[in-house]
């Protein structure tokens, strides 16, 4: 049957056609497409920003979800069919996309906001800081009692036997390995910048490699903990918070060695509703809505003025609470922009062995 290759091709074409989303036409005035990461996080944004904003201004907001794929922004901008007006991006994506010229440069005057009021506002030219989240470890209090108290305990298989869930990415894991190996907090990147330091970090990771389950999506770790598949897991603090608050899971976060980072609002270059996008970002960056968001998720607002408006009951759960800030790993985005490519390759090769 000669038709088989054609059949296969048609099948594949069908698959690829469903994978390529049909670009929507530029929307008329009064609508705005906002893209974020889904889950509890987007839910909190919906309640604090999207819904009240839509109600107040009469703008129709179309929401979408993505997984931080910078490729989608790039493809959109390169093909000049931008359909996303506002995107919630992480630090690495914002830096990379800004360098490539696929994001609008932020005009703070147009936003009408005081850049100095924003924690980390000076760090990026193409993004407005939105929240501070943190990568932390947590454990199940019914399985480990007493539980781990420091990042060193994550690597201590004798004291805390059992599997651990870590992100399938060298980011933060290498830093934690060095910390656990006795490197002082301030020297982490100095050590990691040398070949010996990288070897040292991988050697430390070797000691727990057989006991690690590697996760790729932030939804996995709470599930792995709940299923008893692992006893300690790393994740973004809001994910654990959500599992504790909503699902009443007996998880406890260890704040030692927490690695805070930002999420940002950004606008793909050449979007059809630029003015409306500016308006939305400006509105959402005001102290009141930012404080409102902490009711739904335990991420710290980037606007310093939002601090006093936060409900005191929520404060201890935020990464920015003084009690949680005793031993903080300040992630160096420049280091990762420089060395990320090769470290990721090495990490993947290391995993495969």
């Amino acid at each position, binding site marked *: 049957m000669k038709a*088989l290759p054609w059949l296969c091709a048609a099948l594949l074409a069908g698959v690829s056609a469903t994978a390529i989303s049909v670009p929507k036409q530029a929307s008329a005035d009064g609508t705005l497409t906002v893209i974020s990461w889904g889950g509890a996080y987007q839910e909190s944004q919906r309640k604090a920003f999207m819904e009240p904003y839509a109600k107040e201004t009469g703008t129709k907001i179309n929401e979408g979800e993505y997984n931080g794929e910078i490729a989608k922004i790039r493809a959109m901008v390169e093909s000049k069919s931008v359909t996303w007006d506002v995107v919630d991006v992480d630090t690495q994506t914002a830096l990379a996309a800004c360098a490539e010229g696929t994001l609008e440069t932020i005009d703070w005057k147009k936003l009408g906001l005081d850049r100095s009021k924003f924690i980390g506002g000076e760090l990026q030219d193409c993004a407005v800081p939105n929240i501070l989240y943190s990568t932390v470890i947590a454990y199940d209090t019914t399985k480990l009692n007493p539980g781990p108290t420091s990042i060193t305990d994550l690597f201590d298989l004798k004291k805390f036997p059992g599997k651990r869930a870590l992100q399938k990415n060298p980011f933060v894991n290498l830093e934690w390995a060095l910390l656990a190996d006795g490197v002082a907090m301030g020297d982490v990147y100095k050590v990691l910048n040398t070949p010996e330091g990288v070897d040292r970090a991988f050697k430390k990771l070797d000691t727990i490699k057989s006991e690690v389950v590697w996760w790729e999506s932030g939804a996995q770790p709470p599930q792995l903990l709940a299923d008893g598949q692992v006893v300690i897991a790393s994740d973004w603090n809001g994910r654990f918070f959500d599992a504790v608050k909503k699902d009443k899971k007996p998880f406890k976060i260890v704040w030692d060695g927490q690695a805070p980072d930002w999420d940002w609002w950004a606008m793909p270059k050449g979007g059809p509703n630029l003015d409306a996008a500016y308006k939305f970002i400006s509105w959402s960056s005001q102290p009141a809505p930012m404080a409102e968001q902490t009711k739904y998720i335990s991420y710290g607002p980037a606007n310093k003025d939002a601090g006093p408006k936060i409900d005191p009951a929520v404060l201890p759960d935020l990464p920015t609470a003084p009690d949680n800030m005793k031993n903080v790993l300040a992630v160096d985005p420049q280091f990762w922009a420089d060395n990320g490519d090769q470290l990721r390759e090495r990490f993947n090769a*290391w995993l495969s062995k």
Partner: protein
Amino acid sequence: MTAITDDIRIDIVTDREGLKRRLRAVERKRRIRALALVAPLFLFILLSFVVPIGNLLKNAVYDPSIHDLMPQTVTALGTWDGKELPDEAAFAALAADLGAANKAKTIALIGKRLNYEISGIRSKILVSGRKAGALTAGPYKEAMIGIDKIWGERDTWAVLKRSTSAITSFYVLDALDLGQDADGGLVATPEERAIYVTLYMRTLKISITVTIATLLLGFPLAYLLANLPTRTSNLLMILVLLPFWTSLLVRTTAWFVLLQDNGVINDSLRFLHLTNEPLPLIFSRFGTVVAMTHIQLPFTLLPIYSVMKTISPSYVRAARSLGAGPFHAFWKVYFPLTVPGIAAGCLLTFILCLGYYITPALVGGPTDQMVSGIIDRAMNSENNWGKASALGAILLAATLILYFIYNRLVGIDKIRLG
């Protein structure tokens, strides 16, 4: 009467040419109609499949970033022999290009491209660009080396020279765990970063294992389905097809629930006191193969089934009546007739397996990840389209080569879907 036959004969003689012409015209019309019927599908495949994929694959060997962004350096390095450090003119061109790129805010792209080959050079280029913009007079060589000593190394210039060409072999070589040294010779990627060859071999191994597993499970089932009374076989067929209609992600998650340490299987085994420790069913090769086999089973089974349906039972009956035993009759008469279906089913499953990545990512361990997972990562999170395209191109080439071998062994014209 004779007049009439004569007329006809004359007609035939004079019309022989005309008839041929008419026949050709009819043939041509039929061919055009056939083409017109195929055209929409052909156009669709061309536009939605061949063109975009060709466009992406181009990224594997075509990267004009340095060529476009550093025009003066490209010209200046055109005559460089690569033995010593380049001359003052090349340094002046470098300073001018970096300064201009810094002003045009394109310098990050230069940094990104070169950083693939020289880890950490990105920030050095950004700093060099800022400082080079302030340089107004030579000698540029000392000035540039003074800004960063990386410009005093031949390796840096060799990489720069190689990347001045828009056509590059870097991504393809990298995807084969190879690189080039300063003299252009091939060198293996350092062992601690070499991963891609292992990944390809693993992808092939898992795909072959799954194909064999689906065949072993699917063949007897197809036989049963083809030989049962229609009413029963239809019911069983629905059971085969039901998971086929469920999303791949849902089925993978279902396997996750079954296979995990405190999952149904491990709990039952412990309840029956068959094991004390949970068996490593999840995050292992075993879990990956089981889940993939389950998902792929209908793809192998259906072509075999439809071929079996067309085999007349009288063949086996004839063999039996001529004295062949049941096994002999099956093996010598029935089985060879099913080979086209087996060939079609196995090929379909094997090729689909090559592209798996969600299932290995969810139920596999770190040593079970397949090449598509890395392609996805390079494309979506690392934004390295050159690497993603090169990995994809090699996977495509490997698939085509295997298809060619398969064609030689089985014969594609023998494949049947029913």
